[in-house]
């Protein structure tokens, strides 16, 4: 546990010692705030729905940018050789790095709280929905980040890691949407419920309604744990071949 914390501390330090974390945070806040306030005062309804609706799409690009360096950079510069010569289990390194990146994301999300305050001051929003939506953001981010971590562990190139992560997450987001399910006709129609279950946006929308359903929690938990497990396996496998 202490060793994992040391990894966590190191990764967090690397995020905040370099401009990366600050650039991410500023860009994320600027993009979300602008997209939110563009319509907020026109619609004249005190709700954050339009804000949370764009979160999956912002996360699609924002989180792979946070996770792309986690492993790819270490492999590129060779520091993973030093890291792996330290007395660490693979999962300790994987989790330490993952939670550091998750912390960057959580800080960013937390910094959007003033938006909720603005909405609260101007009207009477449904706080249950807002709290649920924030929980949805957290779960969504945790899952996307895990996928990004896994992809990053497969390559030495950060750009490749970024693009593959974005593609993988985009596929997961749109697979449950009408855009895809409408094409599943005839004998393929049996796949529709599965595609809908797989779709990340559906689960996000369900939690964002303020309803915490255990099926959504299980979905996100699975989507966070499985890629991390695969990351551990991919690192172990790279030592054998």
């Amino acid at each position: 546990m202490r060793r994992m914390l040391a990894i966590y501390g190191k990764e967090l330090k690397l995020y905040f010692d370099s401009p990366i974390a600050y650039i991410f945070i500023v860009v994320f806040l600027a993009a979300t705030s602008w997209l939110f306030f563009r319509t907020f005062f026109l619609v004249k309804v005190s709700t954050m729905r339009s804000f949370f609706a764009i979160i999956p799409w912002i996360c699609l690009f924002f989180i792979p940018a946070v996770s792309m360096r986690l492993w790819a950079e270490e492999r590129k510069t060779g520091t993973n050789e030093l890291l792996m010569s330290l007395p660490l289990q693979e999962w300790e390194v994987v989790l330490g790095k993952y939670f550091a990146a998750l912390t960057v994301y959580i800080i960013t999300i937390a910094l959007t709280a003033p938006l909720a305050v603005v909405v609260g001051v101007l009207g009477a929003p449904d706080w249950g929905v807002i709290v649920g939506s924030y929980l949805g953001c957290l779960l969504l981010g945790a899952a996307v980040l895990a996928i990004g971590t896994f992809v990053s562990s497969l390559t030495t190139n950060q750009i490749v890691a970024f693009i593959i992560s974005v593609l993988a997450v985009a596929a997961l987001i749109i697979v449950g949407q009408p855009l895809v399910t409408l094409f599943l006709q005839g004998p393929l129609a049996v796949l529709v419920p599965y595609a809908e279950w797989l779709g990340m946006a559906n689960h996000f929308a369900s939690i964002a309604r303020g309803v915490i359903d255990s099926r959504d929690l299980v979905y996100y938990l699975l989507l966070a744990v499985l890629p991390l497990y695969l990351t551990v396996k991919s690192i172990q496998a790279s030592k054998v071949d």
Partner: protein
Amino acid sequence: MIEVEHVTKRFGATVAVDDVSFTVRPGEVVGFLGPNGAGKTTTMRVITGLMYPQAGTVKVNGKDIWADPVGVRQQLGYLPETTPLYEEMSTLDFLKFVAAVRGIPRRDISRRVDEMVEVCSLQTMAYKDIGELSRGYRQRVGLAQALIHDPPALILDEPTSGLDPTQILEIRKLIRRLGQEKAILFSTHILDEASKTSDRILIISDGKLVGEGNPQQLAAMATGEAVYSLELRGDAEALVSKLPPYFNVTSRQTTPEGASALTLACSEAGDRSEELFDLAVSVGGKLLKLSRQEATLEEVFLRLTKGGEA
């Protein structure tokens, strides 16, 4: 104590390390010598548990890389070949990080880091980012992280590469000092370095151990062997045909002055110069030059690593 037992490591079809076994005892500095690409780094990576071999095992102080890889790494300090370090971190932060991962108790960390900064003369660089350090200082930071937990065994992959002569001497001195109690395996492709720094030398070539012994023993493998070079005016053909069987003509040229320049390898011990002189006289030739050179460690190395061509 590092025990390497029948380690074989393949990458696809290429065999990087082929059935290598050796031990490094505490208080012993072992030089791991071989040309580039001979399998030194791969062997060291297997010892540190960075990769697993297809066959064989490594034990460090009784801990096995298969059964207890973390235990093995706890016993080891490792300096990777190109000293990869976190460029954005300062020297102090980096050493503190390594100390924490190495399980040094929190209250001892700063004291231990200060000690390492002192031992490796990093005082002036303590607050600088590692990315700003010169090659020599980076190497010292690499050594500091390898030593911070006072490990009983050290694996140093080309610890002196890229350093200037003064720094090389310092590092060698440090290795010798540490080697009084620790088991140290260090790799190099510089023969002189291996013979000056280590108690024992292992020579590896194409993944196989081809020679082992202390510098004197290895040099002894060459004694009795000498190379004679001579210049003869006269019938070189006759001289060559009359040479005793323990002479072997390795090169033959004609000098601009029209004499024959011969290089002979001799496998018999002792100085055979007089014999050659008499021979030259007997074929009616005149010796313009005759010199004898004993085989050096260098030649043993070349012979062992090139399968006897040299």
